[in-house]
């Protein structure tokens, strides 16, 4: 385990790992060039994005389609606990819930991953051994990201050493908003390298980016730097995941795949609490990027209370009558 700060932790960003895929290899040659590229991305029509997200939210998904949507959404959940009061016991009980979300119904799918702080990743890993459920750990001075790069990289290595399969990093929003795009880029590259085999999810914290234009730029920045997923929020800032933000990010991953051939996943997190919200996101995926993304490999929900609502709706479909919070576990 890497608990000691490594003075050589700064990743070497020349060539190889730090180079964006073609045809964007040269956009990061300088901060000015990168800034010109990001600001040259087409602007987002905010009113249009909101209207589009709203109209897609009115789709009526019922009966068998609803049952499919609920099971798909359950399998996409990153069951999350990110509290200062987290304990190994709480992580174990969350892991038990992740394996069998509805103990009364063996046909209920397991969730995609359990998301915890890095120091508890080992506990989660042990509790989930052999289940195929991933352990995601937040790192890089989550949720603010305010620490030196050495500390952030040590945080990542520690989480990976503890057994995390996926790392959720936060970008330096201060640097991003002041236009130091290359700093943010290099940091993501360095974190990606520190991740080793672990997947990297890059949290943009869209609630602090203010505009949808900035969301599009941050999405491209994260994808060019080698992130495997782009994630909306930490869940600690409001507003968190909203449909228009998710729409813009989905458009970004769609355009990025068209240009480079690399597929990037999307993870909205925070504020998605009801089955209805989850189904709206599934509709949004299908209508924006297509069915290729309708899988836990490419789309995740970062949530805790969402799972219980999905289970209640699932029970309603199965039994024909409304269920209640006494019939799902409290977490």
């Amino acid at each position: 385990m890497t608990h000691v700060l490594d003075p050589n932790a700064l990743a070497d960003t020349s060539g190889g790992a730090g180079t964006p895929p073609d045809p964007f290899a040269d956009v990061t040659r300088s901060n000015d060039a990168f800034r010109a590229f990001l600001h040259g991305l087409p602007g987002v029509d905010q009113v249009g994005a909101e209207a589009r997200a709203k109209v897609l939210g009115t789709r009526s998904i019922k009966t068998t389609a609803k049952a499919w949507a609920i099971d798909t959404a359950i399998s996409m959940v990153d069951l999350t606990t990110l509290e200062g009061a987290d304990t190994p016991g709480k992580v174990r009980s969350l892991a038990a819930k992740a394996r069998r979300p509805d103990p009364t119904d063996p046909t209920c799918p397991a969730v995609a991953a359990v998301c915890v702080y890095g120091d508890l990743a080992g506990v989660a890993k042990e509790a989930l051994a052999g289940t195929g459920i991933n352990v995601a750990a937040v790192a890089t001075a989550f949720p603010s990201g305010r620490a030196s790069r050495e500390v952030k990289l040590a945080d990542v290595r520690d989480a990976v050493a503890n057994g995390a399969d996926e790392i959720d990093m936060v970008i330096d929003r201060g640097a991003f908003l002041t236009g130091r795009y290359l700093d943010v880029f290099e940091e993501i590259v360095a974190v990606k390298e520190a991740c080793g085999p672990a997947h990297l999810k890059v949290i943009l914290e869209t609630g602090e980016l203010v505009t949808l234009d900035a969301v599009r730029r941050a999405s491209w920045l994260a994808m060019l730097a080698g992130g495997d997923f782009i994630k909306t929020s930490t869940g600690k800032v409001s507003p968190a995941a909203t449909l228009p933000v998710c729409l813009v990010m989905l458009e970004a991953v769609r355009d990025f795949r068209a240009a480079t051939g690399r597929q990037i996943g999307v993870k909205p997190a925070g504020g998605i609490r009801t089955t209805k919200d989850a189904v709206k996101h599934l509709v949004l995926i299908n209508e924006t990027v297509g069915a290729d993304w309708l899988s836990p490999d490419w789309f995740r929900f970062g949530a805790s209370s969402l799972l219980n609502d999905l289970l209640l709706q699932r029970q309603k479909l199965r039994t024909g009558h409304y269920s209640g919070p006494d019939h799902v576990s409290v977490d």
Partner: protein
Amino acid sequence: MSDRLTVRKTYKLYLGGAFPRSESGRTYEVHDTKGHFLANAAWASRKDGRDAVVAARGAFGTWSGATAYNRGQVLYRVAEVMEGRAAQFTEEVAAGEGLSPAKARAAVDAAIDRWVWYAGWTDKLAAVLGSTNPVAGPYFGFSVPEPTGVVAVLAPQRSSLLGLVSVLAPVLAAGNTAVVVSSKERPLPAITLGEVLATSDVPGGVVNLLTGDAAEIGPWLAEHADVDAIDLAGAPAPLAMELERSAAGTIKRVLRAPAEEPDWSADPGLSRLRPFLETKSVWHPIGV
């Protein structure tokens, strides 16, 4: 200016402390006993019932956790506000039930008195229905009544205010929260009672008033896993039997409907308080 246009009212539901339209968007016309138009009422659907249960469950902690004295004060305040709107109630009861103004006023007075009477019961229930139990061992054993939880109330179809108050007030006095389906043909006093509740000190969600058809919403409430008890006062005989059967699936407390709608002016005693209380018994060690 006698040719002033009448203001035709379209009422909404009282749900979670707010006045939303029915999720279904439906309304229906309410007529007096002679067939004259009175107002439009919201026609609640099963999904309004579902939302009402969520609101009632959310409010249960606050309401059941309040001290009995405080609940009594809040309920008494409701009676005060009802008294202030007695004229409106009288008009609605007279039109809806076809009573003379004097008889309608008597029914309204009886309803307000009934509410005051139940408000007085809140802090006496534990003394009357609780007990200290003689136990054969070094223990202090005692029993206290506690509220059952979320109670679905199908309000009487004929007595639109006195009947409604007679079934709703005991549910609240015992510390439960309520989802009420009003009389279908005579919903106006229930709607006004919703306005009274919203402007008194009752926390939002403690009472949720749905206007509409008990035969439509009742089955969903009877089967609902998060409803703890159901009062079938306003369910017609064949429906009541069916609801009682489906309520058994989730082991609800069921207060059966009488064969005929009773005379609500009779003294109810504890008959409507006791069914919505659970007895908790505690054994406490005594001695050294």
